[in-house]
Structure formats: C-alpha cells, structure tokens
C-alpha cells in the first residue's frame, strides 16, 4: 500500500505498475501538506496545479505504455534557492521576494521532472543559506517533525522538515558547510552531499561559489541513489544505484579520531560507535589539521558571501535577517590575504586528505555535535564548554565540504531520544562507496529514517 510513509522507489514502482496513479499520489501529498504544514513551516510555496499537471502527464505515459521514468510519480520539493518557473527564488530572504518570477526551472528540477518526479513546492530555508538552524526571521522556522519545539537544522531546514514529516519522500537542498547533512542529522534522514562540482548548480541562487553543493535528502539510501543518478551530468559518472546491494564487505572503513572525537555530546559519538561496530570498523584515522580546515571554510564562506551581497548590504541592510546581515557585513570586510591564504590552505589540506584515502575507502565521523536544540536557543554546552549554537552546529561538517568530499549523512535512531546523524565520507567521485555503506547500515537495521509519528501534538 502506498501512503505518506512510502519511499520514492516504492511509489515509482507502484505508479509504473498501475496499482496507484501519479495523480492520486500527488493529491495525497498536497492534502497532507495542506493539513499539517501550518504547524511545521516546511513550505514557502505549494505548486498544486503544476503537480497535478505533471502527475497527469506521468499517468498518460503509463497508460500509453511509454517509459514514465525511474522516479515516476514521486512527489518532491526543493529548497527555495532552486529556480521554479513562475515563482520568485526567495533564497529565504525578504529582499528576493521582489525579484521577478523565475523564467525557467533549475537544471536539477528539470532532470528530476524528466525522470518522472512531480514537483509539489518550494521549501523554507535559512536566509541566503547562511544558517545551521532552520530558523528564518521572515518566514518563520522550519520545525523538526520529531519535536516541533526544536530546530530542523539548516540551512535546508524545510527540506528536512518536509521529508521527515512525510510530505514528500524526496527533497533537494544545498550544502555549503553542512546544510544538507545538518538537517539530515536533526530530522533523522539520509542526506547526500555529492562531490563538489558533480551536480549542476545552474538555476540556483548562490551563496559561496567555492563551496556550494546541491543534493538530495530522503528516507533511504536507495532513494538518494536514484535521485543522484537522475541528476548526474549525462556521461559524467557511473550510476550508483546498481551497486548498492554490494554492501560494505571488503571496504576499508575507519573512524575519524582526534578533532572528530571531541567537542560534542555523548550522543554524537555513541552514534558513530554504533555505526562503526555494525561495519566492523576498528581502525582510527586522523584527518590532519581539521580545525584549521573548518577555519578556512569559515573565512572563505563569509568573505565570498559578504562580497556577493555587498550591494544589498549597502542599500537594504534593514531588510536582512539580523543574524545573516551582521555576519555578511563582517564577511565583506575580510582582508584579501586572509581569504587567499584560506584558499591556499584548502589546496594543501586536500592533498593531505587524499593521502588518507590511499589507505582507507570510507571514513566515519559525527554529523552534528548534538541532537536538535530547541528553536531560539542561543548557546549550548559541549564537552563542558559554553559556545554559540548557530556557528558551531557545523563543526564536524565544515572540514569535509571544504575539499568537496562526497558524504552521506545516515540517521541513527536513539530509543526514546531524538535522532542524530553520522557522516559516511568517501574520496572524490566515490559516492557509490558512501551510498553502499549507507545501504548496508540500513539493511542491518542500524540506520533508518521513518516518518516522524505524532509523538507530539502536530499530527493528531
């Protein structure tokens, strides 16, 4: 039976078999969004008419015996920094609301449509993607379906909320410093940040061109793989879906020690230990100079972001989210030698980490230092040290996206507790290995991403 908890491939299979129509699936998704999203804040726009038209076209292809695509009838939604024809690309801002509507869809939206998926809307996000919380002063927070008083994580907060709430089985997000992996961790989902440059950014609102990545969030490794395969550059890479069943046997898997083994809550490290034990991973590796890598990512991000928004900061400062504005203004003032040294360090660090991948295939690390904090919380205590929440949620994600490594965030359920994620990290271009490990963990029952049930009052 297909319902709101069904996965993308499950839906596609049923639509192709004709046991459910794409229009029925789309209507059910739109009904659930209409009934429940007011409590959760996932969407900034619902494209109901378009969704029903796309679904009808899929059904027509099924009826005519044509190929409706590998994601036939799968409802999906995109972070609202992706262009959606007819909608202004808000990028979480008030300022962009005055922009003309996009004249065409983003490239990745087109590719998912071509694969038969059905767009149901655009998703809330942290302003201009400069966020780890999922909070937004203009459009409200995207809430965590496991506990709506808590953060979804950002900046792809609406993406995490929408998938964990069962509104859609698949959403697209962007990840500059962790913005796919953080909401995946907080909302208990699988999330893929592919290798830097592997998926097209055409038709998306930029943040930091040196570090911006796009990718999917879903409730299974197979769904991520199917979405990734549908979005890959034609001819650029081998499809990853066919190899998922190979499991993790024979892979050299190590746990990241040192920097990645301190500075978080016990829950974060227990999750890594659980995953490592299931995989039989006993070795530890040290990612060299990870703290400096995080610092370099911070400098590059703030400098490029500040430069990108400089004219808006000159003319419309009061219209920014205050938390974004102050950081972007400071970023615009970063001296050039700091920025260039960070970009040179990036090259040096890349070469050292590549040496690690001559000895291991996959590295495990925490995704976030904690489970989802309450919305609005400003500070937290990690490892006995009080620190600001907003900039420190990404301490374990930033050193990895600095050099564009492919990472799958996998969700570890904690009985009676909130979910928390683990990063499965591979060498550039080896999304297949990270997804194989994620699928293996899922098959072993260690990682799973069920739709959040109405543990609190949002779903009665």
């Amino acid at each position, binding site marked *: 039976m297909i319902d709101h908890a069904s996965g993308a491939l499950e839906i596609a299979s049923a639509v192709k078999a004709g046991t459910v129509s794409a229009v029925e699936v789309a209507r059910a998704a739109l009904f659930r969004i209409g009934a429940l999203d007011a409590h959760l804040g996932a969407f900034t726009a619902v494209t109901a008419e378009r969704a029903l038209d796309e679904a009808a076209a899929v059904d027509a292809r099924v009826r005519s015996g044509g190929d409706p695509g590998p994601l036939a009838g799968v409802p999906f939604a995109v972070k609202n920094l992706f262009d959606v024809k007819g909608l202004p690309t808000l990028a979480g801002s008030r300022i962009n609301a005055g922009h003309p509507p996009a004249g065409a869809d983003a490239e990745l939206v087109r590719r998912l449509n071509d694969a038969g998926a059905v767009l149901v809307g655009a998703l809330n996000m942290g302003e201009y993607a400069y966020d780890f919380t999922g909070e937004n002063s203009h459009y409200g927070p995207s809430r965590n379906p496991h506990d709506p008083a808590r953060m979804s994580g950002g900046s792809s907060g609406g993406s995490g909320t929408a998938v964990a709430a069962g509104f859609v089985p698949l959403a697209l997000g962007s990840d500059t410093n962790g913005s796919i992996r953080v909401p995946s961790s907080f909302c208990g989902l699988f999330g893929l940040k592919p290798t830097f440059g592997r998926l097209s950014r055409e038709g998306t609102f930029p943040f930091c061109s040196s570090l911006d990545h796009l990718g999917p969030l879903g409730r299974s490794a197979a769904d991520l793989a199917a979405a990734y395969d549908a979005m890959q550059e034609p001819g650029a890479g081998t499809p990853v879906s066919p190899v998922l069943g190979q499991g993790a046997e024979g892979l050299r898997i190590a746990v990241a020690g040192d920097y990645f083994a301190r500075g978080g809550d016990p829950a974060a490290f227990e999750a890594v230990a659980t995953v490592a034990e299931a995989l039989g991973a006993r070795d530890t590796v040290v990612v060299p100079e990870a703290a400096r890598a995080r610092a370099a990512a911070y400098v590059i991000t703030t400098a490029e972001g500040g430069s990108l928004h400089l004219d808006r900061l000159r003319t419309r400062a009061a219209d920014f989210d205050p938390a974004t504005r102050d950081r972007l203004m400071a970023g615009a003032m970063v001296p050039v030698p700091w920025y260039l040294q960070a970009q040179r360090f990036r*090259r040096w660090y890349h070469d050292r980490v590549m040496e690690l991948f001559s000895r291991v295939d996959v590295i495990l690390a925490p995704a976030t230092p904690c489970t989802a904090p309450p919305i609005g919380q400003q500070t937290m205590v990690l490892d006995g040290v009080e620190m600001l929440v907003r900039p420190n949620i990404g301490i374990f994600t930033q050193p990895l996206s600095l050099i564009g490594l492919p990472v799958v965030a996998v969700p570890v359920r904690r009985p009676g507790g909130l979910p928390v994620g683990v990063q499965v990290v591979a060498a550039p271009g080896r999304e297949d290995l990270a997804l194989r490990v994620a699928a293996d963990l899922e098959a072993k029952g260690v990682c799973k991403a069920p739709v959040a049930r109405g543990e609190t009052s949002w779903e009665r």
Partner: protein
Amino acid sequence: MPDNTFDAEGHVDRMAAALGLTIDPDHRPGVVANMARTAEIARLVTEFPLPDTVELAPAFRPGEESR
C-alpha cells in the same frame, strides 16, 4: 587564544568607509562582534606556514561555462 592585537572596531569603521557601507548604529555591535570572531578564526589559517608553491584551490577552466 583571542587575537588581542586585532582592532575590530577600527577595522569595521575603516572598511565600511572604503566599501561605501553605511552601518546603522544599532547594527554596529553585531558587525564588530562578528569581525572580531572572524579575525580570531582566520588567525588559525594565516598563522599556518605554507610553501610558496601551494596554489589557490579554486579552479578556473578556460572554455568551460559556469555550472
């Protein structure tokens, strides 16, 4: 360790003038605090010795359109 030698307030004032950026007095404390934090974080990178031969990481590929 905080970088006590960095004058965040002076830097913000001089850079704002250089960039033609008017900072509302209500916004200034937040900008200064972020500038001070950025300087402290950047020091981790700038104090790290790198050989002169290490190149910048961003790749510009002539003939290739942006993606």
